[in-house]
């Protein structure tokens, strides 16, 4: 077996699709921090909120396979950047720990599939890794450029801070603000930090999903934020993709960049526009180009 990297990385389905900029910026940021991460080999879908709606045991088993694969690599820390993946993996660990019948099912499945038994793999969120393992002080020191006079609202989405996580305080999270300030960004006191974006609702009951995102965007605007910073591919997608529709429906002049935390941090550490996936944004493109250095050859997309 090859020598184990300290951090394993579980992309989840979104980071290979709509959330590809999250993957790009995450890998870039960790490279610049000299903390290389290795992708979990042959990972499977975490099941997200959806699988839990159909079968709790099966959802747990799906998560268990990933945790068992992680154990095989010998790494202790598994970074799950998507809030839904993060919560699902951690929740299944809790179910296995708390309920003997689920633990039994899990053991049986792993044995049949020829996988090792579960061990204490720690599921981590990049926000919390940046905060705890890197630290505010080091982020401040490593910052090579600052976004002067740009105000942002930090937005966690719902699942990262909920019962199974250790990302931040579930009521009044503050760590993202601290990180943003450390890399030179001004933050507004956004009260809807942990209000749900609706998740897959924009795809199913479209108008309800869009309305939730309108509320989130409108409040950020009202507080004077020029951009929102997210830590979940689904939040980023929902807030980013429907602004044109919201403009049409409400007449509000909303055109706000929706960034990933790793894009902001990565840029401060010296990453460039394209390797941070900044070119993949749909809304607020003008501002993005104005704030972040654009290289001429980066103008062609895909």
């Amino acid at each position: 077996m090859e020598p184990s990297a300290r951090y394993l990385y579980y992309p989840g389905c979104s980071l290979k699709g709509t959330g590809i900029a999250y993957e790009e910026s995450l890998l870039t940021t960790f490279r610049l921090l000299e903390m290389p991460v290795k992708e979990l080999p042959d990972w499977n879908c975490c099941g997200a909120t959806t699988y839990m709606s159909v079968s709790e045991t099966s959802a747990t088993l799906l998560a268990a396979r990933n945790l068992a694969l992680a154990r095989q690599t010998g790494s202790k820390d598994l970074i799950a950047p998507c809030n839904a993946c993060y919560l699902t993996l951690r929740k299944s660990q809790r179910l296995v720990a708390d309920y003997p019948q689920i633990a039994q099912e899990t053991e049986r499945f792993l044995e049949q599939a020829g996988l090792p038994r579960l061990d204490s793999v720690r599921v981590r969120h990049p926000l919390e890794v940046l905060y705890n393992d890197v630290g505010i002080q080091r982020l401040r020191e490593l910052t090579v450029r600052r976004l002067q006079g740009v105000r942002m609202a930090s937005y966690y989405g719902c699942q990262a801070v909920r019962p199974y996580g250790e990302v931040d305080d579930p009521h009044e999270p503050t760590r993202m603000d601290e990180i943003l300030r450390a890399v030179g960004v001004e933050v507004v006191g956004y009260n809807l930090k942990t209000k749900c974006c609706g998740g897959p609702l924009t795809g199913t009951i479209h108008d309800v999903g869009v309305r939730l995102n309108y509320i989130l965007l409108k409040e950020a605007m009202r507080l004077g934020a020029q951009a929102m910073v997210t830590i979940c591919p689904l939040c980023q997608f929902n807030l980013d993709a429907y602004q044109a529709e919201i403009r049409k429906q409400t007449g509000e002049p909303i055109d706000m960049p929706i960034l990933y935390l790793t894009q902001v941090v990565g840029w401060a550490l010296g990453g460039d526009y394209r390797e941070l996936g900044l070119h993949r944004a749909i809304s607020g493109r003008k501002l993005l180009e104005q704030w972040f250095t654009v290289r001429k050859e980066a103008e062609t997309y895909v």
Partner: protein
Amino acid sequence: MSEKKNGQVRIGVYICHCGANIADTVDVKAVAEYAATLPGVVIARDYKYMCSDPGQELIQQDIEEHQINRVVVAACSPSLHEHTFRGAAERAGLNPFFVQMVNIREHDSWVHTEREAATVKAKDLVRAAVQRVYFHKPLEKRRVPIHPEVLVVGGGIAGIHAALTVANSGKKVYLVEREATIGGHMAQYDKTFPTLDCAACILTPKMSAVKAHPNIVLWTYSEVVSVDGSVGDYKVVVKRKPRYIREDLCVGCLQCIDACVFKEPKFDDEFNLGLSKRKPIYIPFPQATPKVVVIDPEACIQLRTGKCKRSCLEACVERGAIDFEQKETYEEIHVGSIIIATGFKTFDPRRLPQYGYGRYPNVYTTLEVERLVNASGPTSGQVITRDGRVPKSVGIILCVGSRDENTNRWCSRVCCMTSLKLAHLIKEHTGAEVYIFYIDMRAAGKGYEEFYQRVLNEGVHFVRGRVAEITDWALDPSEEGKLVARVEDTNTGFVRRIPLDMVVLAVGLEPQFDAHEVQRMFGISCSLDGFFLEKHPKLAPAPTYTDGIFIAGLCHGPKDIPDTVMQAGYAAAEAIALADTGYFELEPNTAYVVEEECSGCKSCVPLCPYQAITFKEDKQKAFINEVLCKGCGTCVAACPSGSIRQNLFEDEEIFSEIEGVLAYA
């Protein structure tokens, strides 16, 4: 063994039916028959109710007629009737400690269903008791005298009422209050539910009575710093903090306050919860008792830097009451009993950030609103918000920091009624629409439901639902510039958004911030919620497990003023009764050191939870103070040389009891 020492042992065994309680599950006849066969047993009987008069007479008769000199009663728990049967034996001329009880109810019939097995168990337990009682020795109860003086700690309504009651019975009372004035929380209120009496009108006469009472020594701005001794003779040290004013000289003219170099009040006024300002030299409120000013050393220029014009001194030059050299002093007193009445603190709503307290200026606590509606409060009784408006809509949120697994689990009992009171007063003062957000309306008390009806009829809105959040974000033009409560109105089934100018949080009641230190200093206990623990939740709600220490008022748990006063009166009655009896009888089941065997290792000294063990340096031996020893047995088990023994738990008594249980019949 010590058979000879005990002379001729004649044991009587009595098996109680407890009606059907025991007899239904245990074959009492069989147990009695079995008991009669045991060595030393002269007589064994069963009877329907042993604790009844005829039951007790049975024992007495047997003692007299059959020369019974040991008694075993197999019945209920000794905590219920040990006293009864010891009394019966004593009346018949037998030393009461020759009685041993066996619990075949709580430990047997109530917890088992199988008759046969329960009967076997009863036999085993009886056999153990018979073997044990064989070795019992006559013991004497010791009496300690009681100092008639009483200490009352805390000068809220509970402490005031207790102090006056004890003082009126002719006994001397020391009342120690931490703040510069007595009165406690009640002094802050405008009106009191449900009668809407003016709080000051009913409280200040009692405060003055305390000050004027010849039997009361009132020490404000003071704290108890140490407590030694035990029931009847507690040695207490009280620290008197310097107020930089000579209490004996100050007449309360308040000219010094006017004269202070600070022309405008600049420092947060604690009594008004920071809703107004005061000067470095101040009096908490006009009716403060004693009516003596205080100087705040953190604020006063002279005390901070030594460089002030000291215009206060000039104003007081005739009386010369101001004394910047004043130092803290310590008083040592001896009292026979102590009443603790240290009250409560209100829940800090910052712990529930969804309600925006501290973030939105127009979010208040009920306690702050008590000051706002008070005619002598910071706004002279006008209800105006921090941004200077008269509110047109006011929402009161109930159960803030109560009935909540994330903060406090208990119901704070007074906040429903407080909210009704404030709803009424706010409506009266402002004509605003008032919304009460409640989960359950708890209005149990004399005249309380009627008051609820009154407020219902005044047109206050009762929205049944716990508010999810307070936000300043308008989703609708009608919400611009307002705070908005988002709540499920569970009566109508709608999720509602209600715009408000003022939000009032009905904060719960919590133990004082230093409750644990006080608890440790006085050697009492706390229940899980952190309030002080009573001896029995129904039958002894003011005594504690420490003899001679009583609790009264909010420090024991949430209650309203009437209940506080009742408990304070009850605690006072107990203290008076103790003092009038003049002595306290101690249980003789104390530990003692067999000096010849003590090796002087000192292991036992720090182990005693009641500080009953001292070490005699001259003899190099440990010594146990019988008055302090509670008979817990810790030292007995800990002594490495086995030289601590305990009355009623001598080795031979315990070992033969164990043998008895184990000798399977």
